[in-house]
């Protein structure tokens, strides 16, 4: 019974839309690691000079992050940080910020 319910719970999580989601709040938790510099939920302090991520289109954010990772986009620090996250994690992060309106 325990195994059955675990399997059922896991498949429900998958059905909820996040294939990788071992934890239902994984995207939220990962995005929170960006908030120190980019603001809580991606809402940066106005005038602080750091990019606002809230509401950024997911495909645009993913392209930027891919370019940071590959070195195609010059950066002072993001090229080093982007490499620390898997592509699946970056996908969750970009999706989370895109949903912040």
């Amino acid at each position, binding site marked *: *019974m*325990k195994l059955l*319910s*675990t399997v*059922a*719970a*896991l498949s*429900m*999580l998958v*059905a*909820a*839309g*996040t294939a990788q*989601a*071992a*934890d*239902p*709040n*994984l*995207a*939220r*938790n*990962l995005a*929170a*690691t960006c*908030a*120190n*510099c*980019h*603001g*809580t*939920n991606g809402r*940066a*302090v106005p*005038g*602080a*000079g*750091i990019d606002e991520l809230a509401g950024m289109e997911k495909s645009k954010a993913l392209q930027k992050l891919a370019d940071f990772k590959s070195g195609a986009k010059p950066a*002072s*620090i993001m090229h*080093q*940080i*982007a*490499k*620390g*996250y898997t592509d699946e*994690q970056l996908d969750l992060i970009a999706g*989370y910020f895109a*949903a912040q309106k």
Partner: protein
Amino acid sequence: MMLMKRRDFLKIGAAAGAMASLYGCAGGGKASGHVVVVGGGYGGATIAKYLRMWSEGGVQVTLIERNPTFISCPISNLVIGGTKTMEDITVSYDGLKNKWGVRIIQDDVVAVDAAKRSISLAKGGAMTYGRLVLSPGVDFMWDQIPGLNNAEAQAKILHAWKAGPQTVALRKQLEAMKDGGTYAIAIPKAPYRCPPGPYERACLVADYFKKNKAKSKVVILDANEDVMSKKGLFMKAWADLYKDIVEYRPNSEVKDVDVKTNTAVLEFDKFRADVLNVIPPHRAGDIAAKSGLKLINNRWVDVNWLSMESTSTPGVHVLGDAVFPAPTMPKSGHMANQHGKLAAAAILNMLSGMEPSQTPVVMNTCYSFVDAKNAIHVTSVHQYDPATKVVQPVKGAGGVSAARNEIEGKVALGWAKNIWADMLA
């Protein structure tokens, strides 16, 4: 594989059905309970806010902090260098109280009774908790420098390693020092709070001397065998900008001081300075070090990296500088903030009957100024490794600046604004 009880499964099912939550994500059952947070610095303030925000007000949070306002250690070296003021690094706790509904008590916690899930306050009274978070920072091991083991000595030979009155006092000593004098900063053996901080301070004092007291010197007495952080960048700054001002002395551990003559006593040598700034060795803050939690090296709290919970004492989570660090993990404000979020997510899961996430990630970014305008950084990303049960640095990620630059100087100040808001607004 997740271990789940049937009732947890039911909770998850219910939550997945109600997906239109405020943050647009599938949450667990709504958490409730009372979390007491001790210490309102980078770790404690962050977890207080995030517990309230992520539980949508479901979890009651009490923050116990001894100071009336938050004063930041990061950026405080610019106050010592004379280009920022205390006002610039001070932030009110009103945002936590008024916007997030955190109950704030200005007091000290003097004892933890983990069996009864209760704490005692210095001003009297006790308080019970569902979960306790200790984020006390560090306290100093004064017995390691016997001459400094009294209040009078500590008022003369400053550490200024906790931002506040000591920051102001050190600035005043530097202002009062005659041109041609010597400022010496003593660095304890690693691990200590803020690895690049002492070298940044040496740069900013040197920058002040260069512009105002050009005959003066800065001597770095480092107990370590080498520069502990951003070595190439700091060495280059000393060579390029402060050639005749900064002198770096490795393997120079201060064992004692002669307070009357302002002299540092090394193993085989002595060094007299006009302004002597000794950072003593430190350990986990008192309340964490003396509450029966398992310590490593008798100094730092051993934690479970999935939850920041003490490995010895259920229900007690510890954040920030007080923790025995994971490999290459610095004791920094940025990292304490990340600990706060990791623990907030874990506690909310636990309070709603779920396991903590099995894949936590934390990252660090730390800017240091080498003069009033130019900064350098170090960054790292740490992912949980189930084999070692520790958040391990990701190979190939992270690194330091290519060279000092003014853009990072501006970003460093923007970082401060954003992280202070992330904790307190």
